[in-house]
């Protein structure tokens, strides 16, 4: 069952009209980055062409209008994530910067020698390395919640790993390899019981399912516009107000201060305390249009569409001889990582590319997870709002052709 008019949705994405190597583009790398609808491209270019001005710095009308629209997008993000207040929404350059911000600001404040940061075995490097750097600096350690063979967290291990020494728990909402949607609310409740703060990496979930940060109960939720049909170069840090207020600035610069002398500087309240320098203004405008676009489609409908595709693709891909999928968690998102026995993922990806099919090949910035899965790399097909069953069929046909060439 189609949950919305997919052809009308696809008509909004100019890139889908392009061909690749003489074939219509089959874009199956939405977990890396999403294609952009026309409204987003126009919102950004219209702002540059007709409404351009800096934000929070100008006496003139253009700047004031830009500031008002910029703050309007902050409100859209608040509503999109169901945060309580707009002051809980910080614009960053992306998910990676948002995690680094929390690691360096909160991490360096509350982590002491002997403390722990708990991550999971399925994290993206951004949610490992950022913490590792801070842990090394303060003498804390990283501990890891394991996963089982279906790609789900081993929740029975959580209580053993949680102790008052664990100050921060950082985990993916949705795995960028396995597609697993983690029981974040349960983890957050148990982590809070030992006094830990909880950061949720929402890079993969934010555009693909309804997100309610209050229901999740997390202290931080981070995501990237470019994976949400929005422009590159902008992302979000949601932080619970009480926690953000307790945190010192990370980067210093313009617009995050109240007064500066050479002896002492006093800082703005959140979110401005964490937005040093001129932000990616035009990208924020485009991001606002992307959020409107996703809301108009309706995230429950969008999630249902991608779930239908994932189930369909899982079925037909498993009929390809020798193909093994990693991650079989119930309710997993639209991300399917696989290998074909006896064939290098690099070869598969190269020969799919020759047929106009864009997939990701590699370790997906999750080397510890690859080690756990016992592979060096995988092929990954991932879906977006514009993906179709017909594209899944093209992938399967493409894989049969690849097998014909490689074997």
């Amino acid at each position: 069952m189609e949950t919305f008019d997919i052809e009308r949705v696809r008509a909004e994405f100019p890139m889908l009209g392009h061909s690749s190597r003489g074939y219509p583009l089959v874009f199956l790398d939405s977990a890396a980055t999403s294609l952009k609808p026309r409204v987003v491209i126009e919102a950004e270019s219209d702002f540059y062409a007709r409404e351009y001005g800096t934000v929070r710095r100008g006496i003139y009308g253009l700047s004031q209008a830009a500031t008002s629209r910029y703050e309007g997008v902050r409100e859209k993000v608040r509503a999109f994530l169901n945060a309580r207040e707009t002051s809980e929404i910080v614009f960053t350059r992306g998910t990676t910067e948002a995690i680094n911000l929390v690691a360096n600001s909160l991490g360096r404040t509350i982590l002491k020698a002997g403390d722990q940061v708990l991550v999971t075995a399925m994290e993206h490097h951004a949610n490992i390395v950022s913490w590792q750097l801070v842990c090394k600096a303060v003498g804390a350690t990283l501990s890891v919640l394991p996963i089982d063979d279906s790609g789900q967290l081993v929740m029975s291990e959580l209580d053993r790993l949680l102790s008052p020494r664990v100050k921060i728990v950082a985990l993916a909402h949705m795995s960028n390899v396995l597609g697993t949607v983690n029981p974040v609310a349960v983890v957050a409740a148990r982590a809070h019981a030992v006094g830990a703060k909880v950061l949720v990496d929402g890079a993969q979930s934010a555009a693909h399912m309804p997100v309610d940060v209050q229901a999740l109960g997390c202290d931080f939720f981070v995501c990237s516009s470019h994976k949400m049909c929005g422009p590159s170069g902008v992302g979000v840090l949601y932080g619970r107000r009480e926690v953000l207020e307790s945190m010192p600035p990370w980067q210093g610069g313009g617009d995050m201060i109240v007064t500066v002398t050479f002896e002492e500087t006093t800082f703005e309240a959140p979110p401005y305390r964490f937005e040093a320098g001129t932000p990616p203004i035009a990208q924020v405008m485009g991001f606002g249009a992307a959020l409107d676009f996703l809301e108009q489609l309706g995230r429950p409908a969008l999630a249902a569409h991608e779930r239908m595709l994932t189930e369909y693709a899982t079925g037909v891909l498993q009929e390809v001889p020798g193909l093994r999928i990693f991650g079989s968690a119930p309710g997993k998102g639209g991300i399917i990582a696989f290998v074909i026995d006896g064939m290098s993922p690099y070869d598969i990806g190269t020969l799919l590319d020759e047929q106009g099919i864009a997939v990701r090949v590699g370790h997906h910035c999750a080397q510890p997870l690859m080690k756990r899965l016992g592979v060096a790399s995988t092929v990954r097909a991932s879906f977006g709002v514009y993906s179709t069953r017909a594209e899944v069929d093209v992938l399967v046909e493409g894989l049969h052709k690849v097998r014909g060439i490689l074997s």
Partner: protein
Amino acid sequence: MTASIADKQAALIARFNAIPSWEDRYREIIRMGRDLPAFPEEHRLDKNKVKGCQSQVWMHARPESGRVHYEADSDAAIVKGLISLVLEVYSGHTFDEIIATPATFVDGLGLGQHLSQSRANGLSAMLKQVKLYALAFKAMANKQPL
């Protein structure tokens, strides 16, 4: 006398341009990779890994009478095929000829953008490594007392 590096490249380009479909060009590359002599296991070391390749590539070389003999391997069939092209072109030639002759065959093979963008598949890293070996062996040879 063996053909020059330039002649070999021209021959390769002619051979691949005679294959009409991209599928068959890849089949030919993969076949050439399969024919590559087995890579000696004692050289399958991290220090012999060519950096900048998306797949794993190992390369080892030895000098012999002013010429360089290369051995290499990859875990990806297409990359192994590309290795066999590189080795067919450069292996067994003199230090100076290897250093002086640029790789022109890559763009001429009709292998699509993907393989021509040699950074992506490590081909440029491999070609650089080929030249580095020749430069290093030449420098060592020049230092040796007569």
